[in-house]
């Protein structure tokens, strides 16, 4: 780097001070500079610009586009029996494009999707803290509740986009590879392609709602720690522990209280006779956990001393 490039032209100081001398700041009733409106601070579009240009965002979205191709390729390489009509999700994956989407959601549902949501929400505040940019945003001033809300909304948009992107690409890949045939459920029930698409759309909606608890927890951890890795990793860890506990049969009904217990309830949508009960409970569970964590995050952030 050539230090000679870095210098302040004396004329620049004059320009600045002239500008300062000529500009009298208008002051609004609430004491703010006239152009300032709290409700216009950190608009979602601005926050999205700040986040989308990050490598990790681009990498995650790129990976989601790539994953269906990897899966399809692995089915090509491996010995699969095309158009099998019975079996589990994996065996049925090649029956039709929709079945391929089901497989993609199934394999990514337990770890990848929670991790992506945890990444978008857990990183959002903590990374600003780690860059020391949080204090300047708050001193701008962006009211704290608003900063949290706008960042959560931007993270939510990114998460939903990621959640929709994966099945959308999988659908394209699936239709290209396996055709737009009927979707076959593991019981051999078949439904028309259009019903399958609708079912998958509903499944994505359910997954998005169900992962609200992940979003809430990640946001909470993001607020209480300045280390992005701690917030994201902590959330993923909780999700994994919950899934492990969910496999301990002797816990019985207690497992219904685990936040991941209803994570796969969207599979009920595969049936022609849709049973909504699990999904309703899953929605309730996610709302309660997500709501509690979000309120905790808002409360903690409101009273926190920003020292980063």
């Amino acid at each position, binding site marked *: 780097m050539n230090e000679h490039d*870095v*210098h*302040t032209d004396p004329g*620049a*100081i004059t*320009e*600045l*001070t*002239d*500008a*300062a*001398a000529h*500009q009298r*700041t208008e*002051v609004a009733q*609430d*004491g*703010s*500079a006239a*152009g*300032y*409106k*709290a409700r216009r601070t950190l*608009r979602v579009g601005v926050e999205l*610009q*700040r986040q989308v240009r*990050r490598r990790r965002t681009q990498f995650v979205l790129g990976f989601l586009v790539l994953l269906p191709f990897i899966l399809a390729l692995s089915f090509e390489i491996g010995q699969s029996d095309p158009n099998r*009509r019975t079996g589990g999700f994996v065996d049925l994956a090649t029956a039709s494009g929709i079945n391929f989407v089901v497989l993609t959601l199934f394999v990514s549902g337990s770890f990848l999707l929670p991790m992506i949501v945890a990444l978008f929400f857990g990183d959002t505040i903590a990374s600003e803290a780690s860059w*020391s*940019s949080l*204090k*300047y*945003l*708050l*001193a701008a*001033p*962006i009211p704290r*509740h*608003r900063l949290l809300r706008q960042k959560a909304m931007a993270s939510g948009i990114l998460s939903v986009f990621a959640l929709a992107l994966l099945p959308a690409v999988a659908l394209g890949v699936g239709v290209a590879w396996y055709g737009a045939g009927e979707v076959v459920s593991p019981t051999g029930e*078949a439904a028309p392609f259009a019903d399958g698409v609708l079912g998958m759309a509903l499944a994505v909606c359910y997954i998005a709602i169900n992962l609200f608890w992940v979003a809430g927890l990640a946001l909470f951890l993001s607020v209480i720690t300045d280390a992005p890795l701690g917030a994201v990793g902590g959330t993923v860890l909780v999700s994994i522990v919950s899934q492990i506990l969910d496999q301990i049969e002797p816990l*019985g*009904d*207690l497992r219904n209280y685990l936040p991941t217990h209803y994570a796969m*309830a969207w*599979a009920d949508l*595969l*049936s*022609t*006779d849709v*049973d909504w*009960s699990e999904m*309703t409970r899953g*929605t*309730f569970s996610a*709302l309660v956990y997500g709501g509690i964590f979000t309120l905790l995050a*808002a409360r903690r952030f*409101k*009273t926190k*001393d*920003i020292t980063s």
Partner: protein
Amino acid sequence: MSRLSRIRGRWSIPAAVVVLALIAGGVYFTRSGDDPAPVTFREAIIDAPEGPDSPQTVNIETRLYLPQQTPAPAIMLAHGFGGSLRSVHTQAEEFARRGFVVLTWSARGFGRSTGQIALNSLDREVRDAQKLLDFLGTRDEVQKDSGGDPRVGVTGASYGGALSLLLAGVDKRVDTLVPVITYNDLAQSLLPNSALATPRSDATPAATAFGEDGIFKRSWAGIFFSAGMTSIDLSSPTGEAPEMGQTESNQPAVQQPPAGGSGAQGQQPPTPSLGACGRFRPEVCTAYTEVATTGRASQQTLDLLRKSSPVAVTDRISQPTMLVQGEQDTLFGLDQSDATARQIAAAGGKVKMVWYAGGHDGGNPGTSLRGEIADWMAFHLQGRGTDPGTGFEYAVQGAFRSSGTPSLRTVVAPAYPGLSPGSSAERRTLKLNGREQVAVNPAGGNPAAISNLPGLGSALSRSSAISSRLSIDLPGQAAVFTSDALESQLLLTGSSTVRLRVARGDQTSGEAILFAKLYDVAADGSRVLPGSAVAPFRVALPPDGSAAEVTVTLPPAVRPVESEHKLALVVSTTDQAFANAEQPAAYRISLASDEISVPVVSGRNVTTGFPTGALWGIVVALLVLIGAGVVAMFRRRLAHDSDPDLAGVPLVISNLTKSYPGGLTAVKDLSFRVEHGQVLGLLGPNGAGKTTTLRMVMGLIHPSEGHIRVFGHKVTPGAPVLSRIGSFVEGSGFLPHLSGAANLRLYWAATGRPLEEAHVEEALEIAGLGDAVHRRVRTYSQGMRQRLAIAQAMLGLPDLLILDEPTNGLDPPQIHQMREVLRRYAAAGRTVLVSSHLLAEVEQTCSHVVVMHKGQLVAAGEVADIAAGGGEATFRVDAPAKAADVLRGLEGVHDVHEDEDAVHASLNGVPRAAALSALVAAGVAVDQAGPRRRLEDAFLELVGE
């Protein structure tokens, strides 16, 4: 408030622990609430006469379970075949907890009761039960209808269910009954014949032919009989049937040990004489041996079976009856409950019919159905609860669901169709296709088609998908007739009927034994046999080779046949579960009419599938979240506080204190003002509390006490007045993946203020980064970041510019420029607050200074004032003592004191030059003369500590 928050901070972790413990305790409490006080029971042996005129007695072992409150109505709970009172212990406890006195007993020949099994003979087992009714009539714990007439309901499964019907038929003291998965006619159950030359006109959906001269249900009968021989119960279902809203995880947790299995047997005294007839009465044994060896029943045997069957007394049952029958039951099918219901209804009894997704092949009633039985008893015995009515409920097993168990829904119809006069089940007619086909019966009836595996059924049918796919038809042994693909879903509910024509295929056989099944065939060809059930039938064939026409009633089942699926009628010559014809033969089978009549019972879905609790929970959770948001909004609205008198003062800090929970006090009782146009230096050594103070000014740290006003407005986190402050505190904060220019632009965009107010270009020129401004910030040097950060602070030309150690990391020319910038910025009508730990920095840059040490204010005022320290002067001399004398000699000069190489004095109006010449004149060599640097002294003192 501040104290409160301190306390809150200190106690937040213990508080979280307490809250978690409370939640865990709550969960534990609500769960342990499911385990109420243990129910007590008393055992007693009751003697009953061995037979009608027998002087001998049998000992019946009994248990009387008592609820918490007595007297209460009683429930007699009978066990299944091969079981004992121990096998109904769990259910008895459940009833007792619902407030009933419960009497259980081991039927004669079972458990520790003596005597021989007479298959629910009216003269023996039923008399025993009446004896038990007498016993209940004597107990004070049991509520009475009158003298010796206890208020009592009877229930039981299978063998016990038949007893409940028989007892209710012969003894009016029984007030209500709930027979579960039991038979109407044992002869028809074990020797069914589903064909009649002229069809009956029964209007109920599951009515089957009940023809004479049936085909022996070999495997089931064998299992049934051996249960009586050995008391090892293979006939009673194990486990529970799936229920609506139930998840797979519930299954293992509530699975009961096999009723009367090894556990019960272990407690049993060895039966002394286990001959070929075991504990059966000789006539029962003889009858079984006859049927098992010949495959046909004599009239005597049929009479014996029929006399021990509920059909003998159902015309006398007028008590309210709830019939529970299983859809997975190849032993006592739905047709048995259909017949019972018809007979009771004809006798004037009230009947409610429940078909659940279990049975001898599918499991006992689950928790919810047991609860429904208890509700029935509660209404009819205690008058509690809502009227369960006389409707018809059936479970529909749907497809796959996430938790692994099949989805279930329950459909409710207002009444069981065909019971009341004039009503009849709705029937749909489908066309069957298929020409005449020849089916061959192999010699010895072997190999045989497989439709179900009795006994194993309950283990297999845990997954109904497996058991219904088990069925195998052997090629050449079956005729197949298929319907067209359905256009819409057909919910088959009951037994379909079809009219067949059977003729000899060769000259050998005089009669045909055939087995009819109705498959649900999916579009891909996969077949499901609903209920795994088969309708066996016997047709006498005319010797001239012409065809015999019969109406065959197919096994009753509940099955949603989806659209695009087909129904396939398969008529085979063999079936593993039955006594097949031994003689080789061939039959010509064709459709007498190309129609199949399929019963449907329309009703509405009971959707506990939609858990209203969870729905309400969702609503409440959303309301709480919205409420929290609204409350927070109002609290923010109320937080605004401004003092108009101070509107022109950029910064007023009053009694500011910041202390941390650990006892550290970063800032203590700090007060100072910054007036318009000042460049104020906040001077202090590292750790003096400068940065903490500035962070509090920016609303980043909450003060413990005191407050800050900026232009009269109290500073709170995010207070709008902060928009008039530009700040650079403790390092730069940029998004490393963006360029310097993009960082400034996005930062300004984040403030939401108009772009024209920003003066981005001017600010960027102050930073003077040249081309580097378009590079990513992560490539910047420390100095470049610092300059960019100062430029960011100047965006929007703020009225108050706060810079924390702005010259750190800058080289001398840059420092010089920075001083220039700050001075001229303040001169342009702005105010600047600079913190530094360097005295020279403050002296050269600032007009005013505030000196801090250990969080407290040490000195404040104009730099010149504080630096010059009034009229004091310092002379650096070679002989301080001599110089002091000279100065003391000058008029007006006082307060003279000396140190190692200097002398200090208050000149008090005497010009410094005059004092200097006096010193020189006295021969003192003066090295330096100047104002006394009190600020420096003070500062050095502080730093030196």
